[in-house]
């Protein structure tokens, strides 16, 4: 992309002044190469976000930013309800509260490599993944509403999880303000048999080895050491979130036009936070957040069950569980005043710095773990929140590598079977019901995750703690 529209205000911070309908600037955090490789459409989308009512300070793009729908993927924007600020169903997206959890195993690489193949096969059998897979859980209407109100807390009350998990899950495992009565029957029907399923696309369960430590003090506090093994799960609110997203997108487009809100893109469908539809959406979205938290808790329980078979003494405590498609009410310092804002993160991770009151005491001196999914070939990263991120992007950081090639282009370039074989030769076992799905998620289709996290660190969003390399990847 032509970067001449941007002013480099810091080495990894680029600013484009507002023009036309924009009321705030676009600010992109990236190094020069990442910015040059960014799609023009991502900037166009960030500019559109900058024109939404009540936006505060800036329309931000993280280093993994790329063309999304409505918001760019990697987009962050905060809205002030007292100044007409909006909540946007398109800004949160279809996979509400999609996120990542990482669990510690207490094991080291040689322990896992001894059983790598049977462990991979067992995880693939026990973790329902992909279209046509069915969970072992069916919820009736009463259980559904209890799950939507209770999140991971509900899951562990059912026996899928441990009490100690909760403090390591955002919102203590239960998103307040959820309104199951704002969730349609169709959304609930879509979820009835989906609890404890991984989904497909870029969702995965990986067994990973810690390949490199950048910050030994924080790594020790997080319980990770070189060659130690962790389990990471990436998935979201499944069909329930998808259905809520679709329904409110349509309703908000229609009501925005009726309210006189000019949408630069229909996908940015939104409603004032202080409106009936805005409040109803927030209630439904928070219920979907609980669905995602419960789902990851159940999948974590399944992973523990499989590991217990191979390693009876491994208990898999959670390092952290964080969502990256969200709208959260948060208090932030703006122009010297603390204001309650509705922060949208679309493919962006909350990244609270040291001392934040929402963090458990064991993490508070260090900051929040920020979990970055890479590709199945290149690996992932664990970062820690940087206090400077509050002033830069409302305490946000990147969420993944970001795609460099479309699925379409990836399919033309790679064969799934070949990728599985090549990764196996490198000691990475991939298990998936679809070789085409593997080709679409080929490691080469993603940007260099190392460059993305380095840019996040240089920009002051989050600091690198450890790099992870995959040993086993179960994909939907």
């Amino acid at each position, binding site marked *: 992309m032509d970067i001449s529209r941007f002013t480099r205000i810091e080495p990894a911070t680029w600013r484009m002044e507002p023009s036309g309908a924009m009321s705030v600037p676009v600010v992109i955090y990236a190094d020069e190469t990442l910015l040059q490789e960014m799609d023009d459409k991502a900037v166009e989308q960030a500019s559109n976000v900058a024109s939404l009512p009540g936006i505060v300070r800036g329309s931000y793009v993280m280093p993994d930013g790329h*063309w999304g729908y409505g918001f760019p993927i990697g987009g962050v924007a905060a809205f002030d309800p007292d100044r007409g600020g909006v909540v946007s169903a398109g800004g949160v997206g279809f996979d509400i509260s999609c996120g990542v959890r990482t669990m510690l195993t207490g094991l080291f690489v040689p322990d896992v490599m001894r059983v790598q193949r049977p462990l991979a096969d067992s995880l693939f059998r026990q973790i329902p993944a992909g279209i046509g897979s069915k969970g072992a859980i069916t919820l009736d209407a009463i259980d559904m509403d209890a799950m939507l109100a209770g999140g991971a807390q509900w899951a562990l009350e059912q026996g899928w999880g441990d009490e100690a998990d909760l403090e390591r899950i955002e919102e203590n495992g239960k998103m307040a303000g959820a309104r199951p009565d704002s969730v349609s029957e169709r959304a609930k029907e879509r979820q009835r048999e989906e609890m404890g399923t991984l989904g497909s696309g870029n969702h995965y369960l990986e067994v990973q080895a810690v390949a490199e430590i950048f910050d030994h003090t924080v790594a020790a506090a997080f319980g990770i050491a070189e060659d130690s093994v962790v389990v990471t799960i990436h998935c979201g609110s499944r069909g329930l979130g998808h259905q809520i997203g*679709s329904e409110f997108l349509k309703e908000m487009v229609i009501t925005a036009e009726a309210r006189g809100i000019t949408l630069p893109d229909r996908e940015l469908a939104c409603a004032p936070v202080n409106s009936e539809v805005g409040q109803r959406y927030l209630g439904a979205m928070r219920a979907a957040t609980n669905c995602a938290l419960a789902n990851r808790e159940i999948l974590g329980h399944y992973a523990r069950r499989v590991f217990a078979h191979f390693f009876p003494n491994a208990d898999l405590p959670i390092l952290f569980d964080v969502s990256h498609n969200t709208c959260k009410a948060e208090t932030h310092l703006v122009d010297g005043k603390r204001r309650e804002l509705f922060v949208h993160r679309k493919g962006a991770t909350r990244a609270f710095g040291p001392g934040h009151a929402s963090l458990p005491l064991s993490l508070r001196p260090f900051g929040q773990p920020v979990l970055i999914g890479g590709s199945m070939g290149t690996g992932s990263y664990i970062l820690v929140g940087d206090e400077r991120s509050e002033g830069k992007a409302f305490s946000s950081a990147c969420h993944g590598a970001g795609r460099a090639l479309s699925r379409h282009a990836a399919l033309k370039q790679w064969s799934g079977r070949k990728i599985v074989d090549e990764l196996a030769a490198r000691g990475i076992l991939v298990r998936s019901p679809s070789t085409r799905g593997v080709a679409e998620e080929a490691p080469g289709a993603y940007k260099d995750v190392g460059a993305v996290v380095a840019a996040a660190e240089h920009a002051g969003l989050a600091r690198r703690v450890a790099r992870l390399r995959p040993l086993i990847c179960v994909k939907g």
Partner: protein
Amino acid sequence: MQASSSKSASSAPRGDRVTGWEHFPHDADIGVRGWGATPAEAFEQAACALTAAVTQARVVPQSEVRLTCAAPDLELLFAEWLNAIIYEMAVRRMLFGKFAVRISDGHLEATLRGEPVDVARHAPASEPKGATYTALKVASDADGIWSAACVVDV
């Protein structure tokens, strides 16, 4: 319309008319586009593109599902149509390969024909989450050929 097993553009002359579908690229997700002599035909073809985003295998039209949906304009109706198919795919765990659509005054009635997902045979690659309003367009060209397109989140 019968879903083709091809993953890219197909076109099938039908008398003096042309129908077809294609995928178009998007950074994170996938674009679907169908075209035909009427909006209904374009919608049917785009549905074939939606199925082809999931599987390249043949989908046997062994059972039938009927659905209706409505929206204030053709573009929102198109997204609603794809979302209605996605819903039926999800709750019935089915794939659909044949579609018959009728559109009248913002209301759509359709018959879908398909079969339960067979993971081994269909090897489903991706799970559509929802039809987005990104690159959403329903329009006719100078030759009167209608096309219907949008990005689908997968």
